[in-house]
C-alpha cells in the first residue's frame, strides 16, 4: 500500500488520549445500548376503565348490548397493548362513580376511561383526575377537557333511513309507500331522538315526499305487534319502510308483518347489530348470508362489543404523549347478509 493512502498516525499525545478515552467511550456506548434496550421493551401502563353499568340484563345506549360485552371488549383488546386493565362498574350511580375514581387515584393508574352518562358526575370526576394529574378519556358523555369517544346516533339513523329509502325507490317506485320510525321514543335518553332525526332525514333522502309515522314502543318490544298491526290495518295495499331504533324492535316488526300476512309489504332496518340479529355460522340468525331474502335488510352497527378495540388505541396515544382528536366517533355502517360474516367473522360455532 502506498504511503499516500495511509492515514496519518496520531501524534504520541493523541495516541495516549485515544488509549485512555476508547474504553471510556466503549463503556458509555454499552450503557447507552443497555438503556435503549430498556426503552425498546415497551413500558406497561395501568388503565382504569369505569363502565356505565354491568347490571345483568341492562342494555346500553338504546341497543341490545350489555355492559358485560363492553367490558369484555376491553379485556380482549388489551391483549394487543402493554396494558394492565383495572375494571370498575359505575353502576349508573354518581356516588359509585366518584368512589371508583378515588380508588383509581389511590392505585396511581396512568389513565382513566370514564363511561358515565351523567355530565355533572363527569365534571367532578374530571376535576379529581386533573388534580391527581391522571389523564382521562370519556366514552359517549363528555368529561370537560378530555378526549371523547362517542357514538354518532344521527349518522347511524341516517344510514338506516337511506338504506330503506334506496330500497323503496328501487323496488316499490310505483307503489304507495309510507315510512315508519319505531322505537322507544319516550326514552329520556337524548340519543334516541338524534337517531330518529337521522332516520327521518335518511328516509327522505331518496323519497322526499314520504309520509313518516312514529310508533313509540315506550321501551316495550311487545308493543310492536300492536302498534305495527294497527298501522298495517289502516294502510292496506301500502308498502312500509320501517326504521327500527333497535334490533329487538326490528325483529318484532318483522313478526308483526308476518302475523298480518304482509311480509312482502315491508322492509326493515335495525340499529345496533347485537347478538340477537347475528351469530355463528350455524346460528341462522336474522342477518345471515343464508338469509339474504329477509325483509330485515340489515342493521346499523354500533360496535359496543368492540369499544375496547376502538378506545384503547386512543388511550395508548394519550399515554405516549401523542396528539389525540378531541372527539372520535364510531364508524357506523350498515351490516347486511352480504357483509355480516366479513364484519363479524364467526368463531364460536357451537
Amino acid at each position, binding site marked *: 500500500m502506498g504511503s499516500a493512502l495511509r492515514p496519518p498516525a496520531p501524534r504520541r499525545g493523541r495516541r495516549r488520549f485515544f488509549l485512555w478515552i476508547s474504553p471510556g467511550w466503549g463503556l458509555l456506548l454499552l450503557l447507552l445500548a443497555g438503556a435503549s434496550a430498556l426503552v425498546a421493551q415497551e413500558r406497561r401502563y395501568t388503565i382504569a376503565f369505569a363502565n356505565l353499568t354491568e347490571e345483568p340484563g341492562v342494555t346500553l345506549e338504546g341497543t341490545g348490548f350489555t355492559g358485560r360485552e363492553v367490558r369484555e371488549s376491553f*379485556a380482549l383488546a388489551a391483549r394487543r397493548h402493554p396494558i394492565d386493565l383495572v375494571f370498575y362498574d359505575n353502576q349508573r350511580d354518581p356516588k359509585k362513580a366518584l368512589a371508583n375514581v378515588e380508588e383509581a387515584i389511590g392505585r396511581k393508574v396512568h389513565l382513566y376511561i370514564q363511561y358515565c352518562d351523567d355530565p355533572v358526575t363527569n365534571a367532578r370526576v374530571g376535576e379529581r383526575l386533573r388534580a391527581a394529574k391522571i389523564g382521562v378519556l370519556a366514552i359517549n358523555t363528555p368529561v370537560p377537557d378530555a378526549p371523547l369517544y362517542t357514538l354518532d346516533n344521527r349518522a347511524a339513523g341516517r344510514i338506516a333511513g337511506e338504506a330503506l329509502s334506496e330500497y323503496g325507490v328501487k323496488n316499490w317506485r310505483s307503489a304507495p309507500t309510507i315510512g315508519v320510525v319505531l322505537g322507544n321514543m319516550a326514552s329520556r335518553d337524548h340519543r334516541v331522538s338524534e337517531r330518529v332525526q337521522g332516520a327521518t332525514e335518511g328516509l327522505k333522502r331518496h323519497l322526499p315526499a314520504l309520509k313518516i309515522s312514529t310508533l313509540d314502543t315506550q321501551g316495550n318490544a311487545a308493543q310492536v305487534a300492536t302498534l305495527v298491526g294497527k298501522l298495517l290495518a289502516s294502510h292496506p295495499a301500502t308498502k312500509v319502510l320501517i326504521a327500527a331504533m333497535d334490533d329487538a324492535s326490528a325483529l318484532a316488526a318483522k313478526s308483526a308483518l308476518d302475523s298480518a300476512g304482509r311480509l312482502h309489504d315491508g322492509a326493515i332496518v335495525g340499529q345496533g347489530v347485537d347478538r340477537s340479529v347475528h351469530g355463528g355460522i350455524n346460528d341462522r340468525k336474522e342477518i345471515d348470508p343464508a338469509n339474504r331474502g329477509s325483509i330485515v335488510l340489515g342493521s346499523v352497527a354500533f360496535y359496543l362489543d368492540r369499544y375496547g378495540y376502538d378506545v384503547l388505541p386512543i388511550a395508548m396515544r394519550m399515554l405516549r404523549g401523542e396528539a389525540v382528536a378531541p372527539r372520535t366517533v364510531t364508524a357506523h355502517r350498515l351490516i347486511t347478509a352480504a357483509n355480516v360474516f366479513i364484519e363479524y367473522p364467526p*368463531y364460536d360455532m357451537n
Partner: protein
Amino acid sequence: MRRKALLVATLMLAGLIASAPAALAQTDCTKVVPPSPWGPNDQTGATNRVTPAVTKAAAAEIKDGKVVVMSYPLTDGIPLFGTRFSKTILTATTLAPGGALGENQLTYMEDTWLSQSHVGTHLDGMGHIGRKDCYFNQIAMGKFITQNNMTKLGLEHLKSFATRGVIVDMVKVYQAAGKFKTNAACKKPCIEKGTVITKADIEAGLKMYNVTLREGDILIVHTGWGNLFEQYPAQNAVYNSGEPGIGKEAAAWLVSQKIVAVGSDTWGVEVIPGEDPKEAFIVHNILLTDAGIHIIENVRTDLMAAEADQTKRATFFFSMTVPKAVGLTGNFVAIEGIR
C-alpha cells in the same frame, strides 16, 4: 327476416363472449398466497421436510420404548365443531340365529362410519383453509373441486409424519411467569380462553426443557384446555366457546422455524377470540395456506406434558399415520409419542 334473426343471434353470441370473462373470473392467486418453497407443482407442503435423515434423527428419541397416547377417543358425545358429526352403525347380521356361515359357523361384523373428517383428534390438510379461492401454493381451488372431493391438495399427497415431536407446556410457562389465569370449568390447570400464546411464551417453554426447534419438528402445545374435552359432554359448550392458542406473531415465528406441524389440546390451535375481531382464523391462513404447515387439533397433550415434567425431556418420536384419503381436506388421526 333471416337477416334480422342473424343479427340477433350475432348480438347474443357477442354478449355471451363479452360476459364469459366475468363468469369465469378467478382470483389471481399469485397475489394472494406465496409460492411453495418446494416448487410450483408441490401439493405436499411441510411433510417435504420429513427426510430419511430427519426420521433417523427422530428415532434417537426412542430411549426406553414407552408409548404415550396423544389422541382422544372418537365417540358419541365428544365436542364437535359447528354442525360436525361422527356416527357409526354396526352391521352384525351373522350374529342373528341362523346367520352364521358354513360348518365353522363364521360370523363377522363391520361398521359403517358416517363422519366428517375434521372431528376428534384430527389433521388439517393443505386443502382445508384458503384465502378467497386460493389455497396452498397459489392453487386456485375453484378449478380443482368436485362434488365429492378435491382433485388437488388431497391427503394422498402428504409424506410421512415420522419425525421428532417437541412439547411445550404453556401451563407451566404461565405459572412460572405469574400470569396464569384458568377457567373454572377445568378440573386440571388450564389456560383461559382468549389467551394469546406468543413467540416468547413458546421460547420459554422450549427453554424450560433446554430444547430448540429444528427443521422438520412437530410442535405440540399443551394448554390444559383439553381437560374440557375429556369431560365430554358436560363441558362441550365451554370447550367450543373459545380457546387459548398461538397468535399471529408466534405463528409467523413457527413458519421461520421450518416445522412440519403444530398441534394442541384445543379445537383450533390458535387463540379464540382472535387478536383482531375482524379476522377469521388467521393463524390457519399463516400456517396452512401460506406455509403448508399442518395443524393438528384436539391433541391429547396432558400425558406427554406430565411425562416431560417428570423426565425433564420435552422431545419424543412422533408417530402418526394419516390415511391416503384421496382428495380429502383432513382426517382423524391417532398419535403416539414414543420415548
